């Protein structure tokens, strides 16, 4: 049973980590765009 919960948790952890990296990249891009606009 523990394996069942571990599997479901692992799945969502992997997805959330990936979405987190996407968000981080997006924020980084946004700040670069702001910098470019200011120049």
């Amino acid at each position: 049973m523990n394996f069942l919960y571990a599997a479901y948790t692992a799945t969502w952890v992997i997805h959330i980590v990936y979405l987190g990296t996407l968000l981080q990249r997006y924020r980084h891009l946004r700040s670069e765009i702001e910098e470019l606009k200011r120049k």
Partner: protein
Amino acid sequence: MKRVFPILAVLTAALLSYAVYEGLIAAPTDQLQGDVYRIIYYHVPSAWTAFLLFVINFVASVQYLARANPRADRLADRIVIAIGVAVCVSTFLVPLPKGIHPSSVATTGIAMAALYFLIKKCFSRQQVDVLAVVGAEVGVVFCTVVLVTGPLWARPVWGIWWAPGDIRLTSTLVLWLIYVSYLMLRRFSSSGQTAVLAAALAIFGALDVPLVYFSIWFFRTQHPQPVIGGGGSIDPRMLHVLLINWLAFLCFAALICWSRFRLEVLQRELEEAHALQALAGPRSSR
């Protein structure tokens, strides 16, 4: 466009929640494996989604190379149609292995040809390259899920974490390795040539897949291994829940792909802007 995304996100979340409920609570308990078998509702849909994304990457890669010039483009179109027709016709002429319906083979052939032309219609050549990256990256994420949930399912049920001869899990591992190497190539190559080189690698990867499958299959006949994931027929109620989970994950994957696509397009526009600015020179940025 921007308002559609949150609505779809909410719908997908609802669908995923419903799918989890069905998987964990509503679905019947397996006689042999107990409740642990419910991992299947995450393991199998993730695998199907990953394969679909890799197919999209393959089609996009072929198309990127084909659309380099009009002649190659027309030739590729004709070849795709020819393959689609050949696959459909072959289902009547060639005896298929047990367990594979002629209708599913024919549908796959038609679906892949249709996918090729759909992508061609909806995406420009540059966008096709972005689609290839997105397919590979999100595919690797779902493939990781498959490779993590697989051993977590195997351990309680079959007593071992991994069997080298298990054809499905090992082929998935090799597929994962090939696509991780694809992503590394993308990261490490200089930007002018990335798309072409990566497309060539994707084609090699696709050619490799059947060879991987057969080599592991033969390895297994010489070295008998426990069969993880079992064959056999599936309870129709379980199949129903499985399909619901697959639909939910497909919607989820579509949303992730859409976000990743927009991110990549934004990144490329930014790089172009940087390049233009560098060309214009530091003093002329009035």
